[in-house]
Protein backbone atom coordinates (compact mmCIF):
# COMPACT_ATOMS: atom_id res chain seq x y z
CA UNK A 1 0.00 0.00 0.00
CA UNK A 2 2.75 2.43 1.04
CA UNK A 3 4.73 1.37 -2.01
CA UNK A 4 1.76 2.06 -4.26
CA UNK A 5 1.31 5.55 -2.79
CA UNK A 6 5.01 6.28 -3.13
CA UNK A 7 4.93 5.05 -6.74
CA UNK A 8 2.06 7.41 -7.50
CA UNK A 9 3.89 10.33 -5.86
CA UNK A 10 6.79 9.65 -8.23
CA UNK A 11 4.51 10.74 -11.08
CA UNK A 12 3.12 14.13 -10.08
CA UNK A 13 1.80 14.95 -13.57
CA UNK A 14 -0.16 11.69 -13.73
CA UNK A 15 -1.54 12.39 -10.26
CA UNK A 16 -2.61 15.88 -11.42
CA UNK A 17 -4.36 14.33 -14.40
CA UNK A 18 -6.25 11.84 -12.22
CA UNK A 19 -7.33 14.58 -9.78
CA UNK A 20 -8.49 16.89 -12.59
CA UNK A 21 -10.36 14.11 -14.36
CA UNK A 22 -12.15 12.89 -11.25
CA UNK A 23 -12.89 16.45 -10.14
CA UNK A 24 -14.54 17.21 -13.48
CA UNK A 25 -16.43 13.93 -13.42
CA UNK A 26 -17.64 14.65 -9.87
CA UNK A 27 -18.94 18.08 -10.92
CA UNK A 28 -20.72 16.55 -13.94
CA UNK A 29 -22.45 13.94 -11.81
CA UNK A 30 -23.39 15.92 -8.70
CA UNK A 31 -24.28 19.46 -9.84
CA UNK A 32 -27.81 20.25 -11.00
CA UNK A 33 -26.91 23.50 -12.73
CA UNK A 34 -26.42 22.85 -16.44
CA UNK A 35 -23.60 25.38 -16.85
CA UNK A 36 -21.76 23.77 -13.92
CA UNK A 37 -22.16 20.42 -15.67
CA UNK A 38 -20.58 21.96 -18.77
CA UNK A 39 -17.70 23.27 -16.63
CA UNK A 40 -17.17 19.75 -15.28
CA UNK A 41 -17.24 18.38 -18.83
CA UNK A 42 -14.65 20.92 -19.91
CA UNK A 43 -12.46 19.96 -16.95
CA UNK A 44 -12.61 16.30 -18.03
CA UNK A 45 -11.59 17.24 -21.58
CA UNK A 46 -8.79 19.47 -20.33
CA UNK A 47 -7.45 16.76 -18.03
CA UNK A 48 -7.11 14.38 -20.99
CA UNK A 49 -5.32 17.09 -22.97
CA UNK A 50 -3.03 17.66 -19.96
CA UNK A 51 -2.27 13.93 -19.95
CA UNK A 52 -1.37 14.03 -23.65
CA UNK A 53 1.03 16.92 -23.04
CA UNK A 54 2.56 15.33 -19.96
CA UNK A 55 3.47 12.07 -21.74
CA UNK A 56 5.24 13.99 -24.50
CA UNK A 57 7.65 15.92 -22.27
CA UNK A 58 11.25 15.46 -23.30
CA UNK A 59 13.93 17.13 -21.19
CA UNK A 60 16.67 18.99 -23.05
CA UNK A 61 14.94 18.72 -26.43
CA UNK A 62 14.25 21.60 -28.78
CA UNK A 63 11.62 22.43 -31.41
CA UNK A 64 11.44 19.85 -34.19
CA UNK A 65 13.29 21.91 -36.81
CA UNK A 66 16.60 20.49 -38.00
CA UNK A 67 19.53 22.44 -36.49
CA UNK A 68 21.81 21.54 -39.34
CA UNK A 69 21.26 19.69 -42.59
CA UNK A 70 24.72 18.17 -42.72
CA UNK A 71 25.13 16.66 -39.22
CA UNK A 72 23.51 13.30 -38.53
CA UNK A 73 20.05 13.69 -36.96
CA UNK A 74 19.91 12.84 -33.25
CA UNK A 75 16.29 12.09 -32.39
CA UNK A 76 16.84 12.67 -28.67
CA UNK A 77 17.53 16.37 -29.18
CA UNK A 78 14.18 17.14 -30.84
CA UNK A 79 10.74 17.14 -29.24
CA UNK A 80 8.11 14.92 -30.85
CA UNK A 81 5.62 17.28 -32.53
CA UNK A 82 2.83 14.72 -32.85
CA UNK A 83 1.35 14.89 -29.31
CA UNK A 84 1.26 18.67 -29.53
CA UNK A 85 -0.62 18.55 -32.80
CA UNK A 86 -3.05 16.05 -31.27
CA UNK A 87 -3.47 18.40 -28.31
CA UNK A 88 -4.30 21.34 -30.60
CA UNK A 89 -6.92 19.29 -32.44
CA UNK A 90 -8.38 18.04 -29.16
CA UNK A 91 -8.61 21.65 -27.90
CA UNK A 92 -10.48 22.67 -31.05
CA UNK A 93 -12.88 19.75 -30.64
CA UNK A 94 -13.39 20.70 -26.99
CA UNK A 95 -14.12 24.32 -27.84
CA UNK A 96 -16.67 23.28 -30.49
CA UNK A 97 -18.43 20.94 -28.05
CA UNK A 98 -18.52 23.59 -25.33
CA UNK A 99 -19.91 26.10 -27.83
CA UNK A 100 -22.77 23.79 -28.81
CA UNK A 101 -23.35 23.03 -25.12
CA UNK A 102 -23.58 26.71 -24.20
CA UNK A 103 -25.92 27.37 -27.14
CA UNK A 104 -28.18 24.57 -25.88
CA UNK A 105 -28.03 26.04 -22.35
CA UNK A 106 -29.06 29.45 -23.67
CA UNK A 107 -31.98 27.94 -25.59
CA UNK A 108 -33.04 25.91 -22.53
CA UNK A 109 -32.92 29.05 -20.38
CA UNK A 110 -35.08 30.97 -22.86
CA UNK A 111 -37.59 28.15 -22.98
CA UNK A 112 -37.82 27.16 -19.29
CA UNK A 113 -36.47 30.25 -17.48
CA UNK A 114 -34.13 28.13 -15.42
CA UNK A 115 -30.85 26.28 -15.66
CA UNK A 116 -31.52 23.97 -12.73
CA UNK A 117 -31.95 20.37 -13.87
CA UNK A 118 -34.52 19.58 -11.14
CA UNK A 119 -36.71 22.58 -12.00
CA UNK A 120 -36.57 21.81 -15.72
CA UNK A 121 -37.51 18.18 -15.09
CA UNK A 122 -40.46 19.33 -12.96
CA UNK A 123 -41.62 21.60 -15.72
CA UNK A 124 -41.28 18.82 -18.30
CA UNK A 125 -43.72 16.56 -16.45
Amino acid at each position, binding site marked *: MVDAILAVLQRPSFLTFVILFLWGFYIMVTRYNLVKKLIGMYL*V*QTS*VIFFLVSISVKKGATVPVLLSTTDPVIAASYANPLPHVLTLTAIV*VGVATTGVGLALCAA*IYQKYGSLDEQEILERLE
Partner: protein
Amino acid sequence: MSHQLPAILFLLPLFAAISMPVVCLKHRQWSYSISVAVLAAMVLVSILNLHNVIHHGEIRYVFSGWTAPLGIEWVADGLASVILVLVSVLGLLGVVFTGSTSPKDLGGRIIHYYTLILLLVSALTGIVFAGDLFNLFVFLEVAAISSYALIGVAGGRALFAAFRYLILGTLGASLYLLGVSYLYAVTGTLNMSDMVDKLPFLLSSKAVVGGLIFMFIGLGIKMALVPFHSWLPDAYTHAPESISPILASLVTKVAILAWIRIIYWVFNASIVINDIPILLLVSVLGTLAAVIGGGLALAQGNLKRLFAYGGISHIGIILIGISQGNQTGFAGGVFYLLNDAVMQAGLFFLAGMAFYQYGIRTIDDLGRLGKHSPWLTGSLIVMALGMIGLPPTGGFFGKWYIILGALEAGNYVSVAAVLLSTLLTLAYFVKLFEALFRQPATQLNVQSGDIPFSFKLTLGITSAAIIILGLFSAPIVQLLLDHAMPPGL
Protein backbone atom coordinates in the same frame (compact mmCIF):
# COMPACT_ATOMS: atom_id res chain seq x y z
CA MET B 1 -8.74 7.96 -60.78
CA SER B 2 -10.26 5.01 -58.96
CA HIS B 3 -7.79 5.27 -56.07
CA GLN B 4 -9.16 8.76 -55.36
CA LEU B 5 -12.67 7.44 -54.67
CA PRO B 6 -12.43 7.47 -50.84
CA ALA B 7 -11.40 11.14 -50.86
CA ILE B 8 -14.16 12.02 -53.34
CA LEU B 9 -16.72 10.25 -51.18
CA PHE B 10 -15.70 12.34 -48.18
CA LEU B 11 -15.33 15.66 -50.01
CA LEU B 12 -18.70 15.50 -51.82
CA PRO B 13 -20.88 16.04 -48.72
CA LEU B 14 -18.24 18.16 -46.96
CA PHE B 15 -17.93 20.71 -49.79
CA ALA B 16 -21.69 20.78 -50.27
CA ALA B 17 -22.10 21.42 -46.54
CA ILE B 18 -19.54 24.23 -46.45
CA SER B 19 -20.74 25.97 -49.60
CA MET B 20 -24.44 25.64 -48.81
CA PRO B 21 -24.81 28.79 -46.65
CA VAL B 22 -23.30 30.83 -49.52
CA VAL B 23 -25.02 29.14 -52.47
CA CYS B 24 -28.45 29.12 -50.85
CA LEU B 25 -28.25 32.61 -49.39
CA LYS B 26 -30.88 33.97 -51.78
CA HIS B 27 -32.74 30.75 -52.56
CA ARG B 28 -33.59 28.82 -49.43
CA GLN B 29 -35.45 26.06 -51.25
CA TRP B 30 -32.30 25.07 -53.15
CA SER B 31 -30.79 23.55 -50.00
CA TYR B 32 -33.08 20.51 -50.25
CA SER B 33 -32.38 19.89 -53.94
CA ILE B 34 -28.63 20.30 -53.45
CA SER B 35 -28.60 17.84 -50.53
CA VAL B 36 -30.55 15.23 -52.51
CA ALA B 37 -28.32 15.68 -55.58
CA VAL B 38 -25.09 15.43 -53.58
CA LEU B 39 -26.21 12.36 -51.64
CA ALA B 40 -27.50 10.68 -54.82
CA ALA B 41 -24.08 11.27 -56.38
CA MET B 42 -22.53 9.83 -53.22
CA VAL B 43 -24.64 6.66 -53.53
CA LEU B 44 -23.36 6.16 -57.09
CA VAL B 45 -19.73 6.81 -56.14
CA SER B 46 -19.96 4.51 -53.11
CA ILE B 47 -21.31 1.67 -55.28
CA LEU B 48 -18.50 2.34 -57.76
CA ASN B 49 -16.04 2.25 -54.86
CA LEU B 50 -17.44 -1.07 -53.62
CA HIS B 51 -17.20 -2.54 -57.13
CA ASN B 52 -13.64 -1.27 -57.40
CA VAL B 53 -12.58 -2.66 -54.02
CA ILE B 54 -14.09 -6.07 -54.79
CA HIS B 55 -12.32 -6.34 -58.12
CA HIS B 56 -8.99 -4.64 -57.42
CA GLY B 57 -8.49 -5.10 -53.69
CA GLU B 58 -8.44 -2.57 -50.88
CA ILE B 59 -7.36 1.03 -51.39
CA ARG B 60 -4.97 2.66 -48.93
CA TYR B 61 -5.40 6.36 -49.45
CA VAL B 62 -2.37 8.43 -48.46
CA PHE B 63 -2.77 12.13 -47.73
CA SER B 64 -0.37 14.58 -49.40
CA GLY B 65 2.24 11.95 -50.12
CA TRP B 66 3.15 11.12 -46.51
CA THR B 67 2.91 7.35 -46.30
CA ALA B 68 1.87 5.57 -43.12
CA PRO B 69 2.95 5.38 -40.30
CA LEU B 70 4.16 8.99 -40.55
CA GLY B 71 1.23 10.31 -42.53
CA ILE B 72 -2.51 9.95 -42.22
CA GLU B 73 -3.95 6.96 -43.98
CA TRP B 74 -7.47 5.98 -44.99
CA VAL B 75 -8.33 2.35 -45.56
CA ALA B 76 -11.10 1.50 -48.01
CA ASP B 77 -11.34 -2.26 -47.56
CA GLY B 78 -14.35 -4.49 -48.21
CA LEU B 79 -15.97 -3.86 -44.83
CA ALA B 80 -15.61 -0.06 -45.06
CA SER B 81 -16.96 -0.01 -48.63
CA VAL B 82 -20.01 -2.10 -47.76
CA ILE B 83 -20.83 0.07 -44.73
CA LEU B 84 -20.31 3.20 -46.82
CA VAL B 85 -22.92 2.10 -49.37
CA LEU B 86 -25.28 1.71 -46.42
CA VAL B 87 -24.39 5.15 -45.01
CA SER B 88 -24.92 6.95 -48.31
CA VAL B 89 -28.16 5.15 -49.21
CA LEU B 90 -29.73 5.72 -45.79
CA GLY B 91 -28.45 9.30 -45.73
CA LEU B 92 -30.16 9.91 -49.07
CA LEU B 93 -33.41 8.28 -47.92
CA GLY B 94 -33.30 10.31 -44.72
CA VAL B 95 -32.97 13.57 -46.63
CA VAL B 96 -35.72 12.60 -49.09
CA PHE B 97 -38.00 11.87 -46.15
CA THR B 98 -36.99 15.16 -44.56
CA GLY B 99 -38.18 17.06 -47.63
CA SER B 100 -41.83 17.18 -46.69
CA THR B 101 -41.40 17.07 -42.93
CA SER B 102 -38.59 19.47 -42.11
CA PRO B 103 -39.60 21.59 -39.13
CA LYS B 104 -41.70 24.41 -40.51
CA ASP B 105 -40.68 27.03 -37.97
CA LEU B 106 -37.02 26.86 -38.94
CA GLY B 107 -37.38 29.59 -41.55
CA GLY B 108 -33.98 30.75 -42.78
CA ARG B 109 -32.23 28.24 -40.56
CA ILE B 110 -33.35 25.47 -42.92
CA ILE B 111 -30.05 26.02 -44.75
CA HIS B 112 -28.04 25.27 -41.62
CA TYR B 113 -30.23 22.26 -41.01
CA TYR B 114 -29.22 20.68 -44.32
CA THR B 115 -25.63 21.80 -43.75
CA LEU B 116 -25.57 19.84 -40.51
CA ILE B 117 -27.06 16.74 -42.15
CA LEU B 118 -24.40 16.77 -44.86
CA LEU B 119 -21.69 17.40 -42.26
CA LEU B 120 -22.97 14.39 -40.30
CA VAL B 121 -22.80 12.18 -43.41
CA SER B 122 -19.27 13.32 -44.24
CA ALA B 123 -18.12 12.71 -40.65
CA LEU B 124 -19.61 9.19 -40.78
CA THR B 125 -17.68 8.61 -44.02
CA GLY B 126 -14.54 9.70 -42.19
CA ILE B 127 -15.17 7.26 -39.32
CA VAL B 128 -15.73 4.41 -41.77
CA PHE B 129 -12.49 5.07 -43.67
CA ALA B 130 -10.23 6.24 -40.83
CA GLY B 131 -6.99 4.25 -40.70
CA ASP B 132 -5.65 5.74 -37.50
CA LEU B 133 -7.08 6.05 -34.05
CA PHE B 134 -6.86 9.82 -33.64
CA ASN B 135 -8.61 10.49 -36.96
CA LEU B 136 -11.37 8.24 -35.73
CA PHE B 137 -11.71 10.44 -32.63
CA VAL B 138 -11.94 13.67 -34.64
CA PHE B 139 -14.62 12.30 -36.97
CA LEU B 140 -16.53 10.76 -34.04
CA GLU B 141 -16.68 14.21 -32.51
CA VAL B 142 -17.69 15.96 -35.75
CA ALA B 143 -20.51 13.41 -36.13
CA ALA B 144 -21.48 13.82 -32.48
CA ILE B 145 -21.51 17.63 -32.54
CA SER B 146 -23.70 17.63 -35.67
CA SER B 147 -26.06 15.15 -33.97
CA TYR B 148 -26.36 17.30 -30.81
CA ALA B 149 -27.26 20.31 -32.91
CA LEU B 150 -29.69 18.34 -35.11
CA ILE B 151 -31.50 16.86 -32.10
CA GLY B 152 -31.86 20.26 -30.46
CA VAL B 153 -32.92 22.01 -33.67
CA ALA B 154 -36.65 21.72 -33.02
CA GLY B 155 -36.47 23.24 -29.53
CA GLY B 156 -38.76 22.25 -26.67
CA ARG B 157 -38.06 19.00 -24.90
CA ALA B 158 -35.47 18.06 -27.49
CA LEU B 159 -33.16 20.75 -26.09
CA PHE B 160 -32.82 19.00 -22.76
CA ALA B 161 -32.42 15.58 -24.39
CA ALA B 162 -29.71 17.01 -26.64
CA PHE B 163 -27.92 18.53 -23.65
CA ARG B 164 -27.85 15.20 -21.82
CA TYR B 165 -26.58 13.50 -24.97
CA LEU B 166 -23.89 16.17 -25.23
CA ILE B 167 -22.68 15.67 -21.66
CA LEU B 168 -22.58 11.87 -21.92
CA GLY B 169 -21.27 11.83 -25.49
CA THR B 170 -18.41 14.17 -24.60
CA LEU B 171 -17.52 12.05 -21.58
CA GLY B 172 -17.39 9.07 -23.97
CA ALA B 173 -15.20 10.94 -26.43
CA SER B 174 -12.83 12.06 -23.65
CA LEU B 175 -12.50 8.47 -22.41
CA TYR B 176 -11.83 7.31 -25.97
CA LEU B 177 -9.13 9.97 -26.39
CA LEU B 178 -7.62 8.93 -23.06
CA GLY B 179 -7.47 5.33 -24.27
CA VAL B 180 -5.85 6.44 -27.52
CA SER B 181 -3.19 8.42 -25.64
CA TYR B 182 -2.43 5.38 -23.45
CA LEU B 183 -1.91 3.22 -26.54
CA TYR B 184 0.11 6.01 -28.16
CA ALA B 185 2.32 6.32 -25.08
CA VAL B 186 3.05 2.58 -25.20
CA THR B 187 3.47 2.02 -28.94
CA GLY B 188 4.48 5.44 -30.24
CA THR B 189 2.13 5.17 -33.21
CA LEU B 190 -1.48 5.94 -34.01
CA ASN B 191 -1.76 4.09 -37.29
CA MET B 192 -3.87 0.93 -36.98
CA SER B 193 -1.81 -1.24 -39.33
CA ASP B 194 1.42 -0.09 -37.65
CA MET B 195 0.03 -0.70 -34.17
CA VAL B 196 -1.05 -4.24 -35.01
CA ASP B 197 2.63 -5.16 -35.52
CA LYS B 198 3.74 -3.64 -32.21
CA LEU B 199 0.98 -4.66 -29.80
CA PRO B 200 1.62 -8.45 -29.69
CA PHE B 201 4.87 -7.82 -27.79
CA LEU B 202 3.27 -5.41 -25.32
CA LEU B 203 0.30 -7.42 -24.09
CA SER B 204 1.67 -7.62 -20.53
CA SER B 205 1.67 -3.82 -20.26
CA LYS B 206 -1.00 -2.43 -17.97
CA ALA B 207 -1.21 0.67 -20.13
CA VAL B 208 -2.44 -1.40 -23.09
CA VAL B 209 -5.15 -3.00 -20.96
CA GLY B 210 -6.12 0.37 -19.42
CA GLY B 211 -6.18 2.09 -22.81
CA LEU B 212 -8.31 -0.64 -24.29
CA ILE B 213 -10.81 -0.42 -21.42
CA PHE B 214 -11.07 3.38 -21.70
CA MET B 215 -11.59 3.18 -25.47
CA PHE B 216 -14.27 0.54 -25.02
CA ILE B 217 -16.20 2.49 -22.40
CA GLY B 218 -15.95 5.61 -24.56
CA LEU B 219 -17.25 3.93 -27.71
CA GLY B 220 -19.79 2.01 -25.59
CA ILE B 221 -21.37 5.33 -24.62
CA LYS B 222 -21.42 6.39 -28.27
CA MET B 223 -23.16 3.19 -29.41
CA ALA B 224 -25.62 3.18 -26.46
CA LEU B 225 -24.50 -0.16 -25.08
CA VAL B 226 -26.75 -1.17 -22.22
CA PRO B 227 -25.26 0.26 -19.05
CA PHE B 228 -24.57 3.52 -20.95
CA HIS B 229 -27.74 3.71 -23.03
CA SER B 230 -29.71 6.25 -20.99
CA TRP B 231 -29.17 9.15 -23.41
CA LEU B 232 -30.54 7.36 -26.48
CA PRO B 233 -34.30 6.93 -25.89
CA ASP B 234 -34.80 10.55 -24.85
CA ALA B 235 -32.66 11.95 -27.63
CA TYR B 236 -34.33 9.90 -30.39
CA THR B 237 -37.85 10.36 -29.03
CA HIS B 238 -37.68 14.14 -28.85
CA ALA B 239 -35.53 14.71 -31.92
CA PRO B 240 -37.41 16.09 -34.94
CA GLU B 241 -39.27 13.32 -36.83
CA SER B 242 -37.09 13.93 -39.86
CA ILE B 243 -33.82 13.50 -37.95
CA SER B 244 -34.43 10.37 -35.86
CA PRO B 245 -34.24 7.96 -38.85
CA ILE B 246 -30.76 9.16 -39.87
CA LEU B 247 -29.45 9.15 -36.31
CA ALA B 248 -30.99 5.83 -35.29
CA SER B 249 -29.85 3.98 -38.37
CA LEU B 250 -26.34 5.36 -38.76
CA VAL B 251 -24.66 6.95 -35.74
CA THR B 252 -24.74 4.00 -33.34
CA LYS B 253 -23.97 1.49 -36.12
CA VAL B 254 -20.87 3.38 -37.19
CA ALA B 255 -19.68 3.41 -33.56
CA ILE B 256 -20.00 -0.40 -33.65
CA LEU B 257 -17.85 -0.39 -36.80
CA ALA B 258 -15.19 1.57 -34.86
CA TRP B 259 -15.34 -1.09 -32.16
CA ILE B 260 -14.95 -3.87 -34.76
CA ARG B 261 -11.91 -2.08 -36.17
CA ILE B 262 -10.25 -1.86 -32.76
CA ILE B 263 -10.95 -5.49 -31.86
CA TYR B 264 -9.95 -7.12 -35.13
CA TRP B 265 -7.68 -4.62 -36.89
CA VAL B 266 -5.73 -2.94 -34.06
CA PHE B 267 -5.38 -6.21 -32.17
CA ASN B 268 -5.17 -9.04 -34.64
CA ALA B 269 -7.61 -11.90 -34.67
CA SER B 270 -5.35 -14.60 -33.21
CA ILE B 271 -4.48 -12.44 -30.14
CA VAL B 272 -8.10 -11.62 -29.57
CA ILE B 273 -9.16 -15.25 -29.80
CA ASN B 274 -6.30 -16.84 -27.87
CA ASP B 275 -4.59 -14.33 -25.58
CA ILE B 276 -6.94 -11.73 -24.15
CA PRO B 277 -10.54 -12.35 -23.03
CA ILE B 278 -11.95 -9.37 -24.92
CA LEU B 279 -14.39 -11.37 -27.05
CA LEU B 280 -15.90 -12.80 -23.89
CA LEU B 281 -16.44 -9.26 -22.58
CA VAL B 282 -18.08 -8.14 -25.83
CA SER B 283 -20.26 -11.23 -25.90
CA VAL B 284 -21.41 -10.73 -22.28
CA LEU B 285 -22.15 -7.04 -22.88
CA GLY B 286 -23.99 -7.96 -26.10
CA THR B 287 -26.06 -10.58 -24.27
CA LEU B 288 -27.02 -8.06 -21.58
CA ALA B 289 -27.90 -5.41 -24.17
CA ALA B 290 -30.00 -7.82 -26.25
CA VAL B 291 -32.07 -9.02 -23.30
CA ILE B 292 -32.36 -5.82 -21.21
CA GLY B 293 -33.07 -3.63 -24.26
CA GLY B 294 -35.85 -5.99 -25.37
CA GLY B 295 -37.31 -6.10 -21.87
CA LEU B 296 -37.34 -2.30 -21.55
CA ALA B 297 -38.93 -1.95 -24.99
CA LEU B 298 -41.85 -4.06 -23.78
CA ALA B 299 -42.69 -1.42 -21.17
CA GLN B 300 -42.87 1.54 -23.58
CA GLY B 301 -46.05 3.23 -24.78
CA ASN B 302 -44.55 5.83 -27.07
CA LEU B 303 -43.86 4.59 -30.61
CA LYS B 304 -40.47 6.24 -31.10
CA ARG B 305 -39.34 5.25 -27.60
CA LEU B 306 -40.37 1.64 -28.31
CA PHE B 307 -38.35 1.59 -31.52
CA ALA B 308 -35.38 3.23 -29.77
CA TYR B 309 -35.27 0.48 -27.13
CA GLY B 310 -35.69 -2.09 -29.92
CA GLY B 311 -32.59 -0.59 -31.53
CA ILE B 312 -30.67 -0.88 -28.24
CA SER B 313 -31.46 -4.59 -28.01
CA HIS B 314 -30.44 -5.16 -31.64
CA ILE B 315 -27.04 -3.54 -30.98
CA GLY B 316 -26.56 -6.37 -28.50
CA ILE B 317 -27.38 -8.99 -31.16
CA ILE B 318 -24.84 -7.47 -33.56
CA LEU B 319 -22.18 -7.55 -30.83
CA ILE B 320 -22.99 -11.21 -30.06
CA GLY B 321 -22.38 -11.95 -33.75
CA ILE B 322 -19.02 -10.25 -34.03
CA SER B 323 -17.76 -11.63 -30.72
CA GLN B 324 -17.91 -15.31 -31.69
CA GLY B 325 -14.39 -15.30 -33.07
CA ASN B 326 -15.23 -17.20 -36.25
CA GLN B 327 -16.06 -16.22 -39.81
CA THR B 328 -19.70 -17.27 -39.73
CA GLY B 329 -20.48 -15.23 -36.64
CA PHE B 330 -18.59 -12.20 -37.91
CA ALA B 331 -20.30 -12.23 -41.33
CA GLY B 332 -23.65 -12.74 -39.59
CA GLY B 333 -22.99 -9.82 -37.25
CA VAL B 334 -22.04 -7.46 -40.08
CA PHE B 335 -24.99 -8.64 -42.19
CA TYR B 336 -27.29 -8.06 -39.24
CA LEU B 337 -25.79 -4.59 -38.81
CA LEU B 338 -26.81 -3.77 -42.41
CA ASN B 339 -30.31 -5.12 -41.80
CA ASP B 340 -30.71 -3.38 -38.48
CA ALA B 341 -29.72 -0.02 -39.96
CA VAL B 342 -32.37 -0.40 -42.69
CA MET B 343 -35.02 -1.56 -40.18
CA GLN B 344 -34.30 1.27 -37.74
CA ALA B 345 -34.54 3.81 -40.55
CA GLY B 346 -37.82 2.26 -41.69
CA LEU B 347 -39.34 2.17 -38.20
CA PHE B 348 -38.50 5.81 -37.52
CA PHE B 349 -39.84 6.79 -40.98
CA LEU B 350 -43.01 5.04 -39.93
CA ALA B 351 -43.19 6.80 -36.57
CA GLY B 352 -42.51 10.12 -38.32
CA MET B 353 -45.26 9.49 -40.87
CA ALA B 354 -47.72 8.47 -38.13
CA PHE B 355 -47.07 11.79 -36.40
CA TYR B 356 -47.16 14.04 -39.46
CA GLN B 357 -50.10 12.36 -41.12
CA TYR B 358 -52.30 11.51 -38.14
CA GLY B 359 -50.68 13.35 -35.24
CA ILE B 360 -50.21 10.18 -33.19
CA ARG B 361 -47.25 9.36 -30.99
CA THR B 362 -48.38 6.46 -28.79
CA ILE B 363 -49.40 2.86 -29.35
CA ASP B 364 -52.88 3.50 -27.89
CA ASP B 365 -53.53 6.34 -30.33
CA LEU B 366 -52.46 4.07 -33.16
CA GLY B 367 -55.22 1.68 -32.09
CA ARG B 368 -57.81 4.45 -31.86
CA LEU B 369 -57.13 5.51 -35.40
CA GLY B 370 -60.33 4.56 -37.19
CA LYS B 371 -59.30 4.12 -40.79
CA HIS B 372 -55.92 2.64 -41.51
CA SER B 373 -53.68 3.59 -44.31
CA PRO B 374 -52.45 0.53 -46.24
CA TRP B 375 -49.00 2.15 -46.39
CA LEU B 376 -48.78 2.41 -42.61
CA THR B 377 -50.10 -1.06 -41.83
CA GLY B 378 -48.33 -2.79 -44.71
CA SER B 379 -44.90 -1.38 -43.99
CA LEU B 380 -45.37 -1.97 -40.26
CA ILE B 381 -46.04 -5.66 -40.95
CA VAL B 382 -42.93 -6.01 -43.13
CA MET B 383 -40.75 -4.23 -40.57
CA ALA B 384 -42.18 -6.30 -37.73
CA LEU B 385 -41.32 -9.48 -39.68
CA GLY B 386 -37.80 -8.14 -40.12
CA MET B 387 -37.35 -7.08 -36.50
CA ILE B 388 -38.67 -10.39 -35.15
CA GLY B 389 -36.62 -12.24 -37.72
CA LEU B 390 -39.02 -14.34 -39.76
CA PRO B 391 -38.06 -15.58 -43.21
CA PRO B 392 -37.85 -14.23 -45.92
CA THR B 393 -36.59 -11.01 -44.34
CA GLY B 394 -32.94 -10.14 -43.85
CA GLY B 395 -33.38 -10.14 -40.08
CA PHE B 396 -33.96 -13.90 -40.14
CA PHE B 397 -30.79 -14.69 -42.08
CA GLY B 398 -28.70 -12.33 -39.94
CA LYS B 399 -29.81 -14.08 -36.76
CA TRP B 400 -29.41 -17.46 -38.48
CA TYR B 401 -25.73 -16.88 -39.25
CA ILE B 402 -25.13 -15.39 -35.79
CA ILE B 403 -26.63 -18.50 -34.16
CA LEU B 404 -24.63 -20.79 -36.49
CA GLY B 405 -21.47 -18.90 -35.49
CA ALA B 406 -22.33 -19.19 -31.80
CA LEU B 407 -22.95 -22.95 -32.15
CA GLU B 408 -19.64 -23.30 -33.98
CA ALA B 409 -17.92 -21.53 -31.08
CA GLY B 410 -19.86 -23.65 -28.57
CA ASN B 411 -21.26 -20.51 -26.99
CA TYR B 412 -24.75 -21.62 -25.96
CA VAL B 413 -25.46 -18.61 -23.74
CA SER B 414 -25.23 -16.40 -26.84
CA VAL B 415 -27.68 -18.65 -28.71
CA ALA B 416 -30.10 -18.41 -25.80
CA ALA B 417 -29.71 -14.63 -25.66
CA VAL B 418 -30.51 -14.22 -29.38
CA LEU B 419 -33.57 -16.43 -29.02
CA LEU B 420 -34.75 -14.65 -25.86
CA SER B 421 -34.31 -11.27 -27.50
CA THR B 422 -36.29 -12.55 -30.51
CA LEU B 423 -39.12 -13.58 -28.17
CA LEU B 424 -39.10 -10.15 -26.51
CA THR B 425 -39.20 -8.48 -29.93
CA LEU B 426 -42.15 -10.70 -30.84
CA ALA B 427 -43.84 -9.71 -27.58
CA TYR B 428 -43.65 -5.97 -28.18
CA PHE B 429 -44.78 -6.26 -31.76
CA VAL B 430 -47.71 -8.40 -30.66
CA LYS B 431 -48.57 -5.57 -28.26
CA LEU B 432 -48.35 -3.11 -31.15
CA PHE B 433 -50.55 -5.18 -33.48
CA GLU B 434 -53.03 -5.94 -30.74
CA ALA B 435 -53.50 -2.18 -30.35
CA LEU B 436 -53.65 -1.69 -34.11
CA PHE B 437 -56.34 -4.25 -34.88
CA ARG B 438 -58.64 -4.18 -31.87
CA GLN B 439 -61.93 -2.32 -32.07
CA PRO B 440 -61.59 0.57 -29.64
CA ALA B 441 -64.48 2.24 -27.82
CA THR B 442 -63.40 5.72 -28.74
CA GLN B 443 -62.01 6.68 -32.06
CA LEU B 444 -59.66 9.50 -32.86
CA ASN B 445 -61.11 11.93 -35.30
CA VAL B 446 -58.25 12.80 -37.58
CA GLN B 447 -58.47 14.72 -40.79
CA SER B 448 -55.72 13.55 -43.04
CA GLY B 449 -55.04 14.38 -46.61
CA ASP B 450 -53.19 12.29 -49.14
CA ILE B 451 -49.95 10.77 -47.99
CA PRO B 452 -47.07 12.76 -49.53
CA PHE B 453 -45.02 10.97 -52.17
CA SER B 454 -41.80 11.19 -50.15
CA PHE B 455 -43.39 9.18 -47.30
CA LYS B 456 -44.57 6.46 -49.69
CA LEU B 457 -41.18 6.38 -51.40
CA THR B 458 -39.06 6.07 -48.25
CA LEU B 459 -41.37 3.56 -46.55
CA GLY B 460 -41.65 1.55 -49.78
CA ILE B 461 -37.90 1.43 -50.32
CA THR B 462 -37.04 0.44 -46.74
CA SER B 463 -39.76 -2.24 -46.65
CA ALA B 464 -38.62 -3.60 -50.00
CA ALA B 465 -34.99 -3.50 -48.85
CA ILE B 466 -35.80 -5.61 -45.79
CA ILE B 467 -37.24 -8.33 -48.06
CA ILE B 468 -34.54 -7.96 -50.74
CA LEU B 469 -31.74 -8.24 -48.17
CA GLY B 470 -33.36 -11.51 -47.10
CA LEU B 471 -33.82 -12.88 -50.62
CA PHE B 472 -30.23 -12.03 -51.57
CA SER B 473 -28.73 -12.92 -48.20
CA ALA B 474 -26.58 -15.74 -49.59
CA PRO B 475 -24.61 -13.61 -52.12
CA ILE B 476 -24.28 -10.72 -49.63
CA VAL B 477 -22.94 -12.97 -46.86
CA GLN B 478 -20.63 -14.63 -49.39
CA LEU B 479 -19.36 -11.17 -50.39
CA LEU B 480 -18.73 -10.35 -46.74
CA LEU B 481 -16.93 -13.67 -46.25
CA ASP B 482 -14.75 -13.09 -49.32
CA HIS B 483 -13.89 -9.43 -48.93
CA ALA B 484 -14.78 -8.05 -45.50
CA MET B 485 -13.10 -10.51 -43.15
CA PRO B 486 -10.51 -9.23 -40.68
CA PRO B 487 -6.97 -10.50 -41.38
CA GLY B 488 -6.27 -13.83 -39.71
CA LEU B 489 -9.84 -14.70 -38.74
